[in-house]
């Protein structure tokens, strides 16, 4: 049976169990706890556990992941990938924006299945390479047609939800650069064997000038 890793980087804690029965009870409890960190109802397909050392579903994300701060891409971790996962993709989208919605803030695909997640602050300039853990990953075109993360900038006074959706694919799709969300969804069709999401919130305050 697989080990269950909660996160990577500094706050890694690994659960090990000596006895299979203990393990089964523990994983059942854990699964319940983890599943409750998702927003809304749970579908069988949303089995991947998506978390972050610095964000949680339903909670306001740090301004450092927005243009009110340094606008770094946030760190993500995932667990409970289905067996047979060969590749991972992530899309960050706001379904309350865009014409038509959603407005895409980030799209990154070609992530190796061995990657435990995405570290904070991925590149924003051409010519900069991805960290070794996610070597080969490609950032596609977000709503601004840019190949990097740009965080929430909602209109003042209205909170928005930001869906960081992780997709597990049964094949290495060998995708090229500059794909949009539409392109990626089309390419992934028929290959998605697991999904999960983390949905933090963000709101901007203050007087517009």
């Amino acid at each position: 049976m697989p080990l269950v890793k909660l996160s990577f980087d500094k706050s890694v804690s690994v659960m090990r169990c000596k006895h299979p029965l203990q393990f089964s009870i523990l994983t059942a409890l854990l699964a319940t706890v983890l599943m409750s960190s998702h927003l809304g109802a749970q579908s069988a397909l949303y089995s991947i556990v998506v978390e972050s050392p610095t964000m949680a579903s339903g909670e306001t994300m740090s301004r450092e992941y927005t243009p009110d701060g340094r606008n770094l891409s946030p760190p993500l971790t995932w667990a409970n990938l289905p067996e047979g996962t060969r590749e991972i993709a992530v899309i960050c989208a706001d379904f309350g924006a865009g014409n038509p919605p959603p407005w895409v803030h980030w799209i990154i695909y070609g992530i190796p299945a061995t990657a435990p997640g995405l570290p904070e602050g991925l590149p924003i300039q051409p010519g900069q390479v991805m960290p070794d853990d996610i070597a080969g990953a490609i950032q596609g075109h977000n709503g601004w047609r840019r190949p990097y993360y740009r965080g929430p900038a909602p209109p003042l006074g209205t909170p928005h939800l930001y869906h960081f959706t992780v997709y597990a694919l049964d094949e290495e799709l060998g995708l090229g650069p500059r794909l949009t969300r539409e392109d990626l969804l089309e390419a992934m069709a028929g290959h998605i064997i697991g999904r999960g999401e983390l949905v933090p919130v963000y709101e901007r305050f203050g007087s517009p000038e």
Partner: protein
Amino acid sequence: MAGDRTKSKEQTAGMTRRELLRSAGVSVAVGASTLGVVTSYAKTAQQSGNSAGSEEAYEQLTTEEGQLLEVIADHLIPSDDSGPGALDAKAVRYIDRALGGVLSDSLEAYRAGLAAFQRYCRSSRGGDFMELPHNDRISALIDVETGAATGAGAGFVGSSAAFFSMVRGHVLQGMFGDPYYGGNENFVGWDLIGYPGVRTAVTENDQRRLEAGELRPYRRSAYGWEEFEKATVSAARKGLRHAD
């Protein structure tokens, strides 16, 4: 950020504005394999001739505004392995002159925009633009470009995207326009993109040589020909001897 060797806040505190400007002009060359790696200019910082280091004062912008605009221009069109950039071309001299004439309606937008830009850098990234590490400077500029740099603390008149677009457009004009207007110094802009120069006649032979890669650039302003009326417009009214 691993590999970022640009200066920390402590290191910049003791520098003069001039030194700060030169070091802030460092940019990442294409193909650099790690974040923030510093590469050399095509020329030394001394030779790159940004206005803050030269004897020319600004005509419309304050020294502080001019220097900030120089640094921004340097990020839009850097001096690097692919050739000279906006500072070499004296693009900000073009803008400054134009702000005294044809673009005088935009002077307020520059004043307000540059001030808002600094406020935004401080509130979002913790320091003036020139004090930030390279990656944060790029990130801040991107947010101004997309219009995300709004909200409390920034206060752009209209969208920050409009300010960015205005600056970028004027920097392009200052880099690639006829040198008569104060930019494209020594034709560095035209040479960068391979423009073979203004000519009043292009024969079939000239075109053939162009297509064979044999046409040498003809470096001359349109007003190098005496026969054309010059576009001095408002500059002449103010007793200045250059175009605007």
